[in-house]
């Protein structure tokens, strides 16, 4: 990779073409994220993208940034370690509904507790795309998949309700067809201090559990009167049976991990040398 001048046109990698199927929702997200970086004027070398495994997990390949494409479900704790030691970097974490809510589902509550200052983007296509069409935690009940040939026998999760219960400080949902919505939400989320969650419905065209048309039908922007500081209201809309609401569900400024660690340890005051520490064991 060559040194890119600071007046880059795009953050997308010129050398690597996405491997996604034509029409995949992920393309839209890719360009929205590219636009977001432009809007925020980040230097490419200050961006770190950490992704999981899945079609969506390939995001880390397509940017001219520092990128880590780890194992299935572990993007979040990996990014947490990175951001803890490098608060100066802009850390973006990306993965799918399986990567994030199934194998990696246990990590979200804890990244939220730490309020680590990064943005986690989950691309929900309601299926395991990469492994070719098995049930994901958001495949609807009774839908037939390769691993549930007689219909899915599990309720699908309500991710927004879960994120609210985890007390995440920024929670929004949007769709891969809504470039404007994505740009505004991503920009806001990345600028939000502490952990932010951007949930994007990104249809799979090959195993189209929730096709574009259907998605369009059920999606509805959160009403104006929704107060993003009102958690109960957010729960109410998360639980809507009629609509899949999009927009910002919840927003709350909280001390970030970096701030807390600085504060709690009050490093400046108690700084010691190695030999001073050893002397304590005499």
């Amino acid at each position: 990779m060559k040194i890119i001048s600071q007046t880059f046109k795009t953050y997308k990698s010129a050398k690597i073409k996405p491997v996604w199927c034509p029409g995949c929702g992920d393309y839209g997200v890719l360009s929205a994220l590219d636009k977001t970086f432009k809007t925020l004027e980040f230097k490419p070398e200050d961006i770190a993208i950490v992704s999981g495994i899945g079609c969506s997990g390939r995001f880390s390949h397509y940017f001219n940034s520092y990128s880590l494409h780890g194992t299935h479900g572990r993007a979040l704790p990996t990014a947490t370690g990175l951001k803890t030691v490098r608060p100066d970097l802009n850390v973006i974490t990306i993965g799918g509904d399986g990567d994030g809510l199934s194998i990696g589902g246990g990590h979200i509550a804890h990244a939220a507790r730490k309020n680590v200052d990064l943005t986690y983007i989950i691309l929900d296509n309601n299926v395991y795309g990469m492994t070719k069409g098995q049930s994901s935690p958001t495949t609807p009940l009774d839908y037939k998949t390769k691993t549930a040939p007689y219909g899915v026998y599990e309720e699908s999760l309500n991710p927004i309700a879960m994120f609210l219960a985890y007390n995440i400080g920024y929670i929004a949902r949007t769709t891969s067809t809504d470039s404007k919505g994505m740009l505004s939400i991503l920009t806001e989320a990345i600028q939000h201090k502490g952990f932010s969650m951007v949930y994007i419905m990104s249809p799979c065209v090959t195993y189209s559990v929730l096709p574009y048309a259907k998605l369009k039908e059920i999606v509805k922007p959160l009403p104006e009167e929704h107060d993003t500081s009102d958690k109960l209201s957010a729960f109410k809309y998360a639980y809507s049976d009629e609509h899949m609401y999009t927009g910002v569900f919840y927003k709350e400024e909280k001390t970030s991990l970096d701030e807390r660690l600085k504060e709690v340890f009050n490093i400046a005051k108690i700084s010691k040398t190695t030999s001073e520490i050893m002397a304590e064991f005499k």
Partner: protein
Amino acid sequence: MGKISKPKLKSKIDFIIRVAGEGGEGVMSCGELFAKAVARTSYHVFTFITYPTEMKGGYAMTQIRIRDITIYSMGSFVDCMVVFNQEAYDKSISSLKEGGILIYDPEFTKIDESGNFVKYPIPFSQISVDTIGRALGKNVVVLGILSHIYGLAHPGLEKLINDRYGSKGKKVVEGNIKALKAGADAAKTIGVTTIMDLSKSEPANEEYMFISGNQAVALGAIAAGCRFSAGYPLTPSTSIFETLSKFLPLVGGRTIQMEDEIAAISAVIGASFGGEKVITPTSGPGLQLMAEQMSLASMLELPIVIVDVQRGGPSTGLPTKTEQGDMKFAVYGSAGESPRIILAPTGVEDTFYQTIRAFNLAEKYQMPVILLTDQSIGYRKATVKMPDFNKIFMVDQFDRKTKVKIPNAEHIDLVQRQIPTEDELKNYKRYKNTKTGISPIARPGTPGGQYLATGLEHDEYGKTNQGPENHLMMSKKRFRKLEQVSLAFERNPMETYGDPHVQIGIMGWGSTEGAIREARYLAEAAGVKVRHIHPHTISPLPEQQISKFLHRLKHLILVEENLTGQFAHFIKAKFGVKPIEVHKCEGMPFTPDEIFNAIMKVARIADEDNITNI
């Protein structure tokens, strides 16, 4: 490390004390306070602890050895034993030396009156009740008794009591001080003999620390420049992470407790990608959970240090007991082929330096390094010489030549991660297929250094490529680094001891070093000479060195603390030898005596061989 010059062998002072009772009875605190007090004198101290997994009840003991020269093991037989209850007596009494001292509470313990030792029945529980109104202080009463026997001055002990119980309030401290006196007085009244007067000994040389093996890991990491740790509590490794949590922030580092071991190793991988030196401590159950991420670190070629403080297994097994049961997992524990390095420290002091070495190797060769200690090292406390902080040397980040030395008290090299030059950044290949296999790592934030680290097979740039030629090339590249490590290990000084010409050899790894060493001294004293090799580098092994050691050896004794002989399997595979395998699989470390017996048995066979050869 290295062939050592003749050790100072004769010691005038060499006492072993054991305090045994029930978990939660203060056995630990009694032993620890006593050991700490002795550690402030010029004597060497070495402690060994075993306690039950249960929160309450079960057999627990602390063994303390005091000596005027370096101590290598917990020793075999006890000079002075305190038992708090019947179970402790039953389980411990066979370890008491003939003629040794036995102190017991007649209210709780029936002893075999015919035993050949000095018996002191002292009702310490009742003394505690009489003094402070509760039996809970009996551990400090016992401390008082011991202070009388070994002539420990009370002001020092009182300060230690204050340090330990100060947070519980003045009343508790005062009660304990009273209990201490009551114990000493009782001992005096009954006429317990004072064996020595430690209060007269020189104060400790300023240059010694009294630390556990686990603390040695934490301090070694800090000295090596590690500034990040992510962990999850797991007996018997937990105190490493606790110590790091306390001290890392003081040197500008950070620790985060994660939700599990997978998250912990993921976080250190992320932080290593960010450019920091990182460590995560665990034990066998946790190491297993880390397997997938260890492979990832090998594939991403990121330096990480993992500590496995081995415990009894399999599964939850014997959480508070020792075993050398994880070696094969450390070496082979990954699906697919991912290079890594395994180091096995031999004792508390060595743990400190091997930890520094682990960081050096990880940073230089860009792969996971597993430090394989065990409960017996981790919980063992010993006096350790303070390193010379003027003798720490940084290896430059662009330096690709320096032969890094094995760290020791006199010289510590600190490897810095290799970074790409300006020139290399012009067409930056993160995974450049170099001669050594080592390719410089760009630190995020460096313009032009952007790259993709992916667990998929990739080309030199990091771009995924699953073609047959590429996979072969990159697999070779990753393993070429391991060949470099091998070469480096061969260049290290031989880790052998004893007469290099005799026909009986003994080999071990990790925490058995001290017991084997003392067994060798005992054997030599009994007229049987053996040579001893104890490689610190388990994988890759310094094969030529070991071959040299094995050359012309007639009998090889291979000592390890597990059932199946994991190291033996390894050695047989590499060298085609047929060792006499001495295993112990009981959750307890070998005593020198047990190994000495094995040596003597082999010596008799060797003798018979000679006879038939005539």
